[in-house]
């Protein structure tokens, strides 16, 4: 007789084993090591929150302290490899296999451990893709999550940094898995219920808030004149002609410059209300001046950002907030919004090759993908039209009859031709290929593929890849904006001139922009303090950004 409820029984066994260390659902901090030892089994698939920002740091430390003789060969499935403990467990043999998305803070160490064979890599994913697999073939047996507070029934308040939690819990709890939540405190009544208690099995009181990385704060004081020039090019050369109202900005100084140029340069061009009204975006402090000047209708967020809580609570017309007033973020839905409901993604990268493929992989660092492959991809399932989408589609495929011609999402790579330490952005061969060799990967880790990229913006101008008719034109269009890098200096000057005549390449002067006008005085805010003042004192900048 086939048994069809083995997972249900297994979960019941875990709950029984764990309850010996709990009062109701609450496990004390002291009992945590023994509790984890009791509820985990060797070879379990475990999701440890490891989000982009918030970290279940108490549970991570406890996991790393387990005895590998008793708990070993775990298969970790998590969005972010962020804390040292996330890799310690592999070094100790507690975990063996890893499927994940983003490893920015651990990019050097994870590279060493992958090369050294200490981690068996499943795959590196984009966030939405990993979430999708939680429901098909990477369903967790145990989820170790982070919440702000809980009541004794297990109802959780995840607050502004809700991020991945609802997705993780949905996949785990409804498929026989165990959900253990780290919280700062138990309360009588949570401010709002983000996760209903019957989906949560155990609570551990950490007595202090979970750790959050301030990832999306860019100091306006660090924005250079060249970055301002690229921002001016983007606004006048892309946002304006395509009429981009719905968009996502990848994090970076170029996009921060665009955000700070809207109330000034954008205003001068008469673009308020015509562009940048609806956003899939984390609460970037650099968007505050544009919000205050009335540019923005609404923003949906992947997560929150340190210091922005009070500002968000005071702007419920703009942000998604719960009945308690605080932000409700949701990475899975925001990623979906960025895929289907936005007409543009614009972000920066470390390397671009002659086909337009881009990657952030270097010889010694593996940062993973995060959300960019999803945000920077053209969704073939999209059916609703918009001005920008149809216009881009017509440029890409002028021959097809209009009713059968799908539109195109604008996917823009923006940055200076030389990056940090004067390393060229444009290369003939991506470092990602070397990595694929070394790790014997089926695919080189490409962030955005060349056939998804529609435009490249550098200080030399804008290359419109939609208008390129073949691979040669595409290569020369890229060389034509690659400045004084080897790739740029290797251009076919005649061909680049022809491309410029056709409008495939547009230089600042073609758009009526004088590079000498790219001045820091054009920024709506030139310092973190200016941002704080623009918010009416509602924005609380983290200490590292203060100079007053």
């Amino acid at each position: 007789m086939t048994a069809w409820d083995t997972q249900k029984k297994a979960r019941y066994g875990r709950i029984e084993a764990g309850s010996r260390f709990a009062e109701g659902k609450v496990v004390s901090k002291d009992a945590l090591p023994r509790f984890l030892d009791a509820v985990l089994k060797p070879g379990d698939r475990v999701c440890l929150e490891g989000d982009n920002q918030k970290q279940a740091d108490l549970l991570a430390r406890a996991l790393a302290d387990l005895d590998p003789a008793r708990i070993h060969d775990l298969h970790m499935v998590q969005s972010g490899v962020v804390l040292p403990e996330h890799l310690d467990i592999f070094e100790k043999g507690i975990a063996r296999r890893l499927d994940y998305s983003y490893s920015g803070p651990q990019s050097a160490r994870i590279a060493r451990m992958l090369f050294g064979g200490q981690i068996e890599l499943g795959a590196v994913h984009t966030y939405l893709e990993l979430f999708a697999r939680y429901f098909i073939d990477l369903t967790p047996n145990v989820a170790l999550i982070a919440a702000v507070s809980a009541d004794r029934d297990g109802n959780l308040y995840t607050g502004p940094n809700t991020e991945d939690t609802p997705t993780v819990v949905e996949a785990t709890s409804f498929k026989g898995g165990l959900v253990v939540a780290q919280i700062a405190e138990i309360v009588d009544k949570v401010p709002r219920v983000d996760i209903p208690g019957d989906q949560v099995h155990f609570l551990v009181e950490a007595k202090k808030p979970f750790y959050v990385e301030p990832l999306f704060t860019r100091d306006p004081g660090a924005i250079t004149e060249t970055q301002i020039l690229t921002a001016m090019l983007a606004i006048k050369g892309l946002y304006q002609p395509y009429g981009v109202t719905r968009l996502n900005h990848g994090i970076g100084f170029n996009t921060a410059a665009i955000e700070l140029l809207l109330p000034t340069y954008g205003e001068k061009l008469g673009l308020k209300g015509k562009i940048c009204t609806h956003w899939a975006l984390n609460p970037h402090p650099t968007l505050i001046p544009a919000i205050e000047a009335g540019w923005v209708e609404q923003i949906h967020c992947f997560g929150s950002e340190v210091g922005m809580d009070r500002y968000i609570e005071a702007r419920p017309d703009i942000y998604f907030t719960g009945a308690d007033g605080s932000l409700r973020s949701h990475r899975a839905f925001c990623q979906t919004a960025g895929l289907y409901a936005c007409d543009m993604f614009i972000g920066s990268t470390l390397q671009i090759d002659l086909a337009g493929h881009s990657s952030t992989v270097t010889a010694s660092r593996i940062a993973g993908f995060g959300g960019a492959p999803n945000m920077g991809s053209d969704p073939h399932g999209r059916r609703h039209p918009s001005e920008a989408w149809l216009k881009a589609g017509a440029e890409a495929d002028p021959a097809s009859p209009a009713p059968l011609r799908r539109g195109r999402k604008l996917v823009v790579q923006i940055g200076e031709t030389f990056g940090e330490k004067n390393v060229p952005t444009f290369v003939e061969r991506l470092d990602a290929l070397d990595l694929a060799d070394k790790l014997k990967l089926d695919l080189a880790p490409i962030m955005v593929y060349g056939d998804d990229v529609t435009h490249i913006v550098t200080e030399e101008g804008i290359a419109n890849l939609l208008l390129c008719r073949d691979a040669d034109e595409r290569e020369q269009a890229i060389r034509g904006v690659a400045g004084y890098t080897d790739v740029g200096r290797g251009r076919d000057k005649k061909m680049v001139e022809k491309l410029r005549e056709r409008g495939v390449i547009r230089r600042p002067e073609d758009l009526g922009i004088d590079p000498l006008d790219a001045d820091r005085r054009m920024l709506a805010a030139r310092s973190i303090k200016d941002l704080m003042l623009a918010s009416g004192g509602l924005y609380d900048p983290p200490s590292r950004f203060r100079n007053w």
Partner: protein
Amino acid sequence: MTSWYEASARQRIDALADPDSFEEFIGPEEREISPHLALFDLPEQFDDGIVVGKARLSGQPILVAAQEGRFMGGAFGEVHGAKLTGLLRAARELRCPVAILFDTGGVRLQEANAGEMAIAEIMREIVLARAADIPVIGLIGGRAGCFGGGGLIAGCCSTLVISEHGRLSVSGPEVIETNRGADEFDSKDRALVWRVTGGKHRYLVGGADLFVEDDGGAFRQAAIEALSRPAALDILVLADEQERLERRLARFGAMNEARDIWAALGMLRPEAVPGLATEAFLAEAGHKREHAHDAR
């Protein structure tokens, strides 16, 4: 609004002086560069990081020196120091007031001996100038602040103007942390650094005389005001200064948090002081701060 904090040395002089009135001495075309930096294979700057010259301020002749805080942290070297020493000697001969636009972390490690000597020479020149009743004013509001030897020189000036971004001290935050540990002073806690060395605190506790917005026009107005203040330095002034400092020590010596000092001064909400806009801050601090009276 020109941000003083963001401006270069030359842009600050432009903002301070009457239009078209500035004439540079020993300009970059003279190439009076440091004789030492090449030994360390370090980049040189044609003016060695300080711009000196004469100008007019509201019609009145002044001599000006402006440090470039982004070149080697505005630090003093042999030539850099000599330009300021020479300027101060000229001030005495011409009987002309001096404005020093500070933006310095102290003395260059690579030119330590020459730099320290320059600090001492500059301090003596300021004292001699003031003994002859010539004002020597200091303006502080740049990225590097006014630390080390710069702090010592500032202490000799007749009037100090500071903005909230400005910092004034001798030992820098990292030096204190290295010597005393992070528990004593966490140099990464920037809010703390500004509570201890920043413009608002210096103004409140009497270490600086005029507090201004981070704006070229505001510094200019304050400089005009500063030049009209008493500049003489004699034994009576020193005695007053001694008394003032003893009083400060008696009043605040037992406190180890700036907010306690501000509370003792009568500031209504000490924790809100750093966030106050300039007008609101001056409205309250103006009559509650420790006054320098005649002593500087």
